C-alpha cells in the first residue's frame, strides 16, 4: 500500500513472503485442479476426448470399484475402533493411573508413529502368514494344531496392522487432552462426593471426548488413505481398497488415468469431508481447560489391576514394535526363510546384497538425498508461509492458511496421482525433482503447523521491538525470529526427514527406473527377491528411522509430535 521512502525495490519481505505464498498455492492448486479436470475427461482409443461424468456414473459405481470402496470403509472403521481401544487405554494408563513403569513406556508407545506401516505389514507377514509365519509355527506347536490359526492376508490382517500403527495418533490426542485438563475440574468432582472411578466416568471422559473424536477422525482418514498395508496384505489375494485400485489403474495392463483420477477424487472427497467435519464440528467443541497451575492431577490407584494395565502396555509394544522388528531382524540375518528361525544358518550376505545391488544401493542414496533436501525446502517454505500467516499483513493470509493445510486431507496416492498428471509432460518427470515436488506438496502442512504453533506462542512484539530498535525485516528474521523458532524448526525438519525416508505411495507412483527410494526398493524386493533380502532392505530403512527417532528425542522432545 505504501512505499518506503528510500526503497525503490519492493524489499525482502514482500518478495519472500509473496513468493512463498504463490509457490505453495501453485504446488497445491495445480495437481488438485488437474485431478478434477482429468476425472471429468473421457479419452477412448480412436475418439476425440470429451467432458463427461461417465467416469463417475459408470466406472466408480461398477461392482469391482464399489467393492473396493466397501473394503476401504470396513478396514478404516475397524482400524479406528481398534486404535481407539489401544490409544485411549494406553493414554489413560499413562496419564491417570499408577501403572508401573509408565514413564519408561511412554516414549516407546510413540515409536510406531515413525515407522513405516508398509514395512510393518511385511513384518507381520513374517509373523502371521500361513505356513511361513513364526507365530503360526509357535501356536501350532503350543496347541498341537493341524492348520495355521492366523492369517494376515485378509481384511482382519489389514485392520490389525493399520490399528497398531495408527494407535499413537489416538494416543497423542487423548494424552494431550488429559495433560492439559485443569486438575481442579476433577478435584471439584471429588470434593462434591464422587469416587475416583465415578469422576473418571462422569467428568474426565466427557472432557476428553472431543479429543477422542479428533483422534478417531484422523485415524479413519489415515487408514482410508493408507496404501502400503493393503498393497502388502490385500492386493495379492484380490482384496482391493480404493488406494490399491487407484494404483492398479496407473500401472500394468489396464491403465486408465481418467478412471483413476475419478476414483482419487471420490477418495479425496471422503477424507476431506472428515477433515472438514473435524475442523468445523469437533475442534470448536474442544474444551479449553488449560491453566497455568503446576498441580499434577491425582492418579487412580489401580491396586492389583495395575499389573493388568502393565500387561496391556507390554502387549501393545510387543505387537506394534518388538515382534515385528524382531521378525524383520531375524529374517534379515537368515540364509533362507521357511517360517522357523534357525540359529545355525546366519548370514550378513543379505545386507551385503542390499548395499551392492544397484537398485537398492541407489535407493538408499536417493532416499537420503530426498529426505535432506525435502525437509530443508519444506521447512524453508513452512517458515515463510507460517510467518506470512501469523505475522504478515497482506491480503490472502486466510486463503494461504487453508491452502497450506489442505494437502493433509489428501491421501498420498491421490495427491501423487494429481502430480503425475500435472507434471508428466514437463521435463521434471523422470527426475528426482518430481518426487521432491510430491513430498513437499503433500507434507508442507506438517512443517507449517510446526512453525505456526511456535509462532502463535511467541508475542509479535518480540519482532516489533527489533524493528523499532532499528533492525530491518531481514535482520529481524535472522537475529530474532529464526532463533526463537529454532525448536519448532528442528522438530519439524526431523519429522519431515523421517516421513520422507519412509514415504511410499507418492514415490511408487512417480518414480522411474533410477529414481528408486527405500520404500520402492522394499516393494521391488517383495516382488522380485526372496523374503530374507526383503527383510534386509526393510531393516536398513528401519535402522535409519530408529536413528532419526533417537535424534528427535534428544533434540526436540515428544510433545512436538502432535501434528
Amino acid at each position, binding site marked *: *500500500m*505504501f*512505499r*518506503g*521512502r*528510500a*526503497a525503490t525495490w519492493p524489499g525482502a519481505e514482500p518478495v519472500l513472503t509473496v513468493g512463498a505464498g504463490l509457490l505453495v498455492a501453485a504446488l497445491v492448486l495445480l495437481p488438485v485442479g488437474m485431478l478434477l479436470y482429468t476425472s471429468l475427461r473421457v479419452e477412448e482409443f480412436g475418439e476425440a476426448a470429451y467432458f463427461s461424468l461417465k467416469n463417475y456414473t459408470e466406472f466408480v459405481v461398477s461392482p469391482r470399484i464399489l467393492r473396493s470402496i466397501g473394503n476401504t470403509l470396513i478396514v478404516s472403521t475397524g482400524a479406528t475402533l481398534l486404535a481407539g481401544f489401544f490409544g485411549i487405554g494406553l493414554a489413560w494408563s499413562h496419564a491417570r493411573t499408577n501403572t508401573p513403569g509408565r514413564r519408561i513406556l511412554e516414549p516407546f508407545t510413540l515409536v510406531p508413529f515413525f515407522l513405516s506401516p508398509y514395512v510393518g505389514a511385511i513384518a507381520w507377514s513374517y509373523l502371521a502368514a500361513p505356513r511361513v509365519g513364526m507365530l503360526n509355527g509357535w501356536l501350532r506347536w503350543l496347541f498341537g494344531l493341524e492348520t495355521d490359526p492366523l492369517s494376515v492376508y485378509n481384511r482382519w490382517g489389514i485392520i490389525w496392522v493399520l490399528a497398531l500403527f495408527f494407535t499413537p495418533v489416538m494416543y497423542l490426542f487423548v494424552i494431550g487432552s488429559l495433560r492439559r485438563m485443569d486438575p481442579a475440574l476433577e478435584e471439584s468432582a471429588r470434593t462434591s462426593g464422587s469416587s475416583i472411578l465415578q469422576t473418571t466416568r462422569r467428568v474426565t471422559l466427557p472432557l476428553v471426548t472431543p479429543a477422542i473424536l479428533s483422534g478417531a477422525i484422523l485415524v479413519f482418514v489415515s487408514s482410508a488413505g493408507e496404501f502400503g498395508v493393503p498393497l502388502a496384505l490385500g492386493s495379492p489375494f484380490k482384496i482391493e481398497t480404493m488406494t490399491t485400485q487407484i494404483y492398479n489403474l496407473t500401472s500394468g495392463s489396464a491403465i486408465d488415468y481418467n478412471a483413476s483420477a475419478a476414483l482419487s477424487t471420490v477418495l479425496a472427497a471422503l477424507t476431506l469431508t472428515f477433515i472438514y467435519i473435524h475442523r468445523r464440528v469437533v475442534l470448536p467443541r474442544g474444551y479449553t481447560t488449560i491453566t497455568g497451575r503446576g498441580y499434577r492431577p491425582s492418579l487412580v490407584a489401580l491396586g492389583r489391576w495395575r499389573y493388568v494395565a502393565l500387561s496391556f502396555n507390554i502387549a501393545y509394544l510387543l505387537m506394534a514394535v518388538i515382534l515385528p522388528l524382531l521378525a524383520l531382524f531375524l529374517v534379515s540375518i537368515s540364509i533362507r526363510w521357511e517360517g522357523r528361525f534357525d540359529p545355525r544358518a546366519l548370514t550378513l550376505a543379505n545386507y551385503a546384497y542390499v548395499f551392492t545391488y544397484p537398485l537398492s544401493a541407489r535407493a538408499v542414496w536417493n532416499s537420503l538425498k530426498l529426505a535432506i533436501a525435502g525437509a530443508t525446502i519444506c521447512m524453508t517454505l513452512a517458515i515463510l508461509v507460517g510467518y506470512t500467516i501469523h505475522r504478515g*499483513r497482506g491480503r490472502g493470509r486466510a486463503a494461504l492458511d487453508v491452502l497450506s493445510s489442505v494437502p493433509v486431507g489428501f491421501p498420498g496416492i491421490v495427491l501423487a496421482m494429481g502430480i503425475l498428471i500435472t507434471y508428466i509432460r514437463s521435463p521434471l518427470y523422470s527426475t528426482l525433482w518430481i518426487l521432491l515436488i510430491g513430498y513437499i506438496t503433500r507434507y508442507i502442512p506438517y512443517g507449517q503447523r510446526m512453525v505456526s504453533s511456535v509462532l502463535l506462542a511467541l*508475542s509479535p*512484539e*518480540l519482532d*516489533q*521491538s*527489533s*524493528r*523499532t*530498535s*532499528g*533492525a*530491518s*525485516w531481514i*535482520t529481524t528474521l535472522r*537475529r*530474532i525470529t529464526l*532463533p*526463537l523458532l529454532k525448536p519448532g524448526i528442528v522438530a519439524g525438519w526431523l519429522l519431515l526427514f523421517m516421513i520422507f525416508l519412509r514415504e511410499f505411495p507418492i514415490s511408487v507412483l512417480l518414480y522411474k527406473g533410477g529414481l528408486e527410494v527405500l520404500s520402492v526398493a522394499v516393494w521391488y524386493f517383495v516382488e522380485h527377491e526372496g523374503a530374507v533380502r526383503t527383510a534386509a532392505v526393510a531393516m536398513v530403512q528401519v535402522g535409519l528411522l530408529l536413528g532419526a527417532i533417537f535424534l528427535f528425542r534428544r533434540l526436540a522432545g515428544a510433545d512436538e509430535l502432535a501434528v
Partner: protein
Amino acid sequence: MTDYLVVDGLRKAFGRETAVDGISFGVEKGKILTLLGPSGCGKTTTLRCIAGLEHPDAGAIVIDGETMTSARERLFVPPERRSVGLVFQSYAVWPHMTVAQNVSYPLEVRKWPRVEVAARVERVLEMVGLSRYRDQYATKLSGGQQQRVALARALIFNPRLLLFDEPLSNLDAKLREQLRMEIVHLQREVGITSVYVTHDQAEAMVISDRIIVMNRGRIEQEGDARTIYTHPANRFVAQFIGQANLISGQVMEVDGLDGSLRVDVALGAGGRAPLRALPPGAGLQRGMRVLILIRPEDIEVGPAGATSRDNGLEGTVVSAVYMGQYLDYQVDVAGVRIRAQAKPGAPYRGGDRVALGVPPAACFCIPEESDGQ
C-alpha cells in the same frame, strides 16, 4: 513553535472496526504526552502508527520536521528507519539473549564500533540499575527488571522519540509506583520527547506534561492533569478521571455580579432543588441543560438540620465504608445517589439523616450539548 511530533488526521480501521477515527495532536520537544483512555479507545493503535508498526488508512505523522507517514503522499518509513524507541507492556525482551545482548542490539544493527557499544551498554545499564545482571538471560529476571531491560534497549540508541505502551500494567502496585517515578526522572534527565499510553489515570497524572483523553478512537479532551480533573469537557472525561457525582439540571439564573449560576437540579420523584455553581462554565445561559460535576471529596457531611451556608442537600445514608483516610458514604438525596468522602471524624451509619454541603466552587457545570456520550 512547531511541535516536535505532529500527528495529523490519523485514521486506522481493522476490518469494519474503526480503531482511530481521525485524530490530531502535537508534542513539544522534550515533553511527555500521555494518551489516556479505556481499552479499545485507540490509544495503542495511535502509538503503533507513530512507531511505524501499523499502516494508517489516512493522516500524517511528522517527527522533527520529517514526514514518517503520509497516506496522501503514499509515504511510509519502516519502523527501523524512524529512530523511535518503544517499550511494550509485555516487555518483549528476547529470551535467547542476555541482558547485555538485548540492550546492545540496537547499536549492533546500526553497526557501531564494538568498543563504543560496550561502553554505552555499560552506561545505560547503570542508568537503569541493571549492571550486575548484564550476562544473565533476560527472561530469567523479574518483571520489573525485564521492563528496565526494555527501557534500556529503547533508550540506548538516542532515539528521537520514546514511546511507552502501558509499560507498567503487568507489574504489581508497589513496583508500578516505583518504576513510574524512575521513568519520570529518566525522561526528564535525558530530555527525550515521549508519548506514553495508559489506562491508569493516576499514572497519567504523575507522568505527563499533557494528557489526551481518548474514547472510541477520538480525542475527548486535551490538557494538563489539573485542567482535565477540574474542568472536564464532558461526561465521559468527568467519569473516567477520578470519581464523579453527575447531576443533571437546568440553568435558572446567571448572577450578573460574580457570574455564578443558579441551577435547578432535577431529583427523583419529580423533586427539584436549587444549586449555586462557581466558577461558571464558559458561555452558559439561562435555560441551558447542564450536568453538574461534584467530586466526592469536596462534599461536607454534617448532621441533619445544620444546613451549611450554600447548597445544602438533605439525605439518608445508604452505606458508610471505612477506608482509612476517609469514610466513603453513599447518600440518597430524594432518589438521587450521591457519593461523598468525608473525614472519618463524623461517623454516620446507614439510615442516618445527614446534610450534605457542597461549596459552589466545587460545582462545575458541563453543558449537556457537549456531552460525549
